[in-house]
């Protein structure tokens, strides 16, 4: 088993082969394309949107898709396409930073726990993780934003905290197998300390795992942000957010379905894209797992 995982250290010719395989993977290409569309939409929104998203134009409220507003207008006459573009910015930013928080705290904790396997410290870290896992994340996120006030920043923190145990566990389990490797043994014999081995030998070899998990957590982060915004605890108006667009269109769904449909599709496609990309990346980095899930 151990020697089969040698592909964690690809030989020098590997990047070319990796790209070739990547382009052949349908789920990876499709997932990356979907993700890219929304990332681009978010980036473009900084420079240009078809309409001003904070501009209220009551005379044009609740119009279906037209040449002027390709995705129609909402109950304040705002352009839904523009709102989805700016909303992508919020969703992506929240999910990105939340994953960042999860990695920044979770990975070192996981490495640390693995380096001191079986010690009291390992127990404390891992049981601490279990404790965080034991709480329903969205409920705690609601609690945090309810106490500190609803805002995008608090949503990021709330979602980020629940990413920490995910990355800590993943890193620890990945690192534990690596600690058995001969090259780690060699490094220890050479006199390197646990911290240095963790950074120089363990971390580079769990990166693939982290990228795959990061992609999945990213999609969960987008869902969580949409959920918090939906209950009014995410980004505050007038900043558009997909979840709040859904919440606001709720009572109008019977006569203006486009108001709920498009933000709903945006959430669906982004999450789908990220999940496909995550699957594709996992297959790519770890071909043995292809076809399993």
């Amino acid at each position, binding site marked *: 088993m151990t020697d089969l995982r040698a592909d964690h250290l690809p030989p020098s010719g590997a990047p070319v082969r990796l790209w070739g395989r990547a382009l052949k993977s349908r789920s990876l290409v499709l997932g990356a394309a979907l993700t890219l569309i929304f990332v681009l939409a978010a980036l473009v929104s900084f420079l240009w949107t078809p309409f001003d998203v904070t501009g209220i134009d009551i005379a044009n409220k609740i119009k279906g898709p037209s040449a002027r507003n390709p995705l129609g207008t909402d109950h*304040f*006459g705002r352009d839904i396409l523009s709102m989805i573009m700016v909303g992508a910015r919020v969703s992506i930013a929240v999910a990105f930073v939340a994953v960042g928080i999860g990695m920044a705290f979770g990975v070192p904790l996981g490495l640390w726990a693995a380096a001191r396997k079986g010690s009291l410290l390992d127990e404390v870290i891992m049981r601490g993780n279990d404790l965080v896992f034991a709480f329903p994340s969205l409920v705690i996120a609601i609690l945090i934003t309810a106490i500190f006030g609803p805002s995008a920043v608090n949503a990021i923190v709330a979602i980020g905290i629940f990413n920490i145990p995910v990355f800590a566990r993943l890193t620890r389990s990945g690192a534990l197998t690596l600690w058995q490797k001969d090259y780690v043994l060699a490094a220890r014999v050479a006199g390197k300390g646990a911290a240095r081995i963790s950074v120089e030998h363990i971390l580079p070899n769990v990166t693939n795992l982290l990228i795959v998990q990061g992609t999945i957590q990213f999609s969960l982060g987008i869902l969580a942000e949409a959920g918090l915004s939906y209950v009014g605890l995410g980004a505050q108006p007038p900043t558009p957010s997909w979840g709040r667009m859904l919440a606001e269109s709720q009572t109008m769904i*019977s006569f203006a379905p486009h108001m709920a449909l498009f933000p709903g599709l945006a959430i669906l496609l982004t999450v789908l894209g990220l999940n496909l990309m995550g699957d594709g990346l996992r297959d790519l980095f770890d071909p043995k797992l292809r076809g399993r899930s």
Partner: protein
Amino acid sequence: MTNRFTTVGLAGGLIFGASVAFAQQADITIGQQLEPPHLDPTSAAAGAIDQVVYSNIFEGLTRFGPDGSVGPGLARSWDVSEDGLTYTFHLAEGVKFHDGTTMDAEDVVFSLNRARAEDSANAQKALFAGITDVVATDAATVTVTLSNPDGAFPFKMAWGDAVIVAPESIDGIKTTPIGTGAFMFDNWVEGDRIELKKNPEYWGEPAMLDAVTFKFISDPTAAFASMMAEDVDVFAAFPAPENLPQFDADPRFKVLVGSTEGETILAINNKQAPFDNVKVREAVAHAINRQEIIDGAQFGYGTPIGTHFAPHNPDYVDLTGQSGYDPEKAKMLLEEAGVTLPLKVKMTLPPPSYARRGGEIIAAQLRQVGIEAQIENVEWAQWLEGTFRGKDYALTIVSHTEPMDINIYARPDYYFQYDNADFQALIAKIDVESDPAARSEMFKQAQQVIADDYVNAYLFQLPLITVAKAGVEGLWENAPTQAADMTAVHWAE
């Protein structure tokens, strides 16, 4: 477990429904958004309490009619002395509380003394402030002595806060209210519903329904769904005006649009810089386009107002022109006031859709003149604590649903912190004036004063939107006070 009970209940309901299918339906389910915190109208300001108990469970000496007029309640008639200082109320005879005890003059004395006592928890103590003495002359006669003549005393006694309660049952009033009304309290499933049943020994015209259920549905989408599914027969103060065209088009339902006493205002903290400057407040008023708010937030349902007074009141003065939409003027005023733009302020918004949606529109309108209003959405509890009691806000939107409440501007410690000695003197004068013409004149004057001082930005009068099944009759179309008076409600033949 719960599921099984529901199923049993459902089956029971079906059997029951089948057996009485040929008889006249005699029960009704009313949906409303807010659940009352408890059921004592004499010790809390929450309008949801009156919505359930007013005139159904509890009655006062006088009562509001559907048109806002004040008529006899437990007091069938009253005399006023020459000097206007003594009111003699003649009580209805043979009235019994729901627990079987007799309602007599002693209960009236108890109720009024309890409400005006030093340690009274009554939310409207001002109603009783003029009383110096309450005496039970005999079992059916009560004499009230006032410190000053007060033509509005019968009006004050019609409020839900002035209902008659019994010393025997006062301890349990919050959970098992015992009144004299045509309905008696039956059951309260917290978080879901309150059930009332007909009082078979009612002293007056008996209720036409056997049972009334108040169901609490806070979410507008759920309100729409429950109405459409006919889970509720009536929805009082329907929260989603955007759905009304659908109900209108559906022959199963009817939509009643009436007036309320709810002046919806953009309240301004008059003590907080730069809003302590009247010019800045005037600028805010001119930056606001009322029609856009009514169309955008209320889907057209609402009457613009220019002062804190209900437009259906005969004394109302239309002052909307004085604070008309004029963004250029607003910018000029801000410049005159020496405000550095953009001016960043906080706007706190409670949950109702008029506030949440109206707030977003107002924020966009204020942005046009250089005021950046940062929206903070809060729940009612937070709003009451932080904004209303704590006065920690700059701007907020709320509807003031009490009738004739312009006197709140005479309270310098009220949350908008408006402190004008002349206005306070004027309200004090109105309080002691009993000549209707003079009162009317002074009310008009008061409306002008607060409009001139631009205390708040006055937006619109909140409509009362009731959605009901087509066969329901006898509902109040207007809301002269917060109430869902069920005593005359019945199903059409």
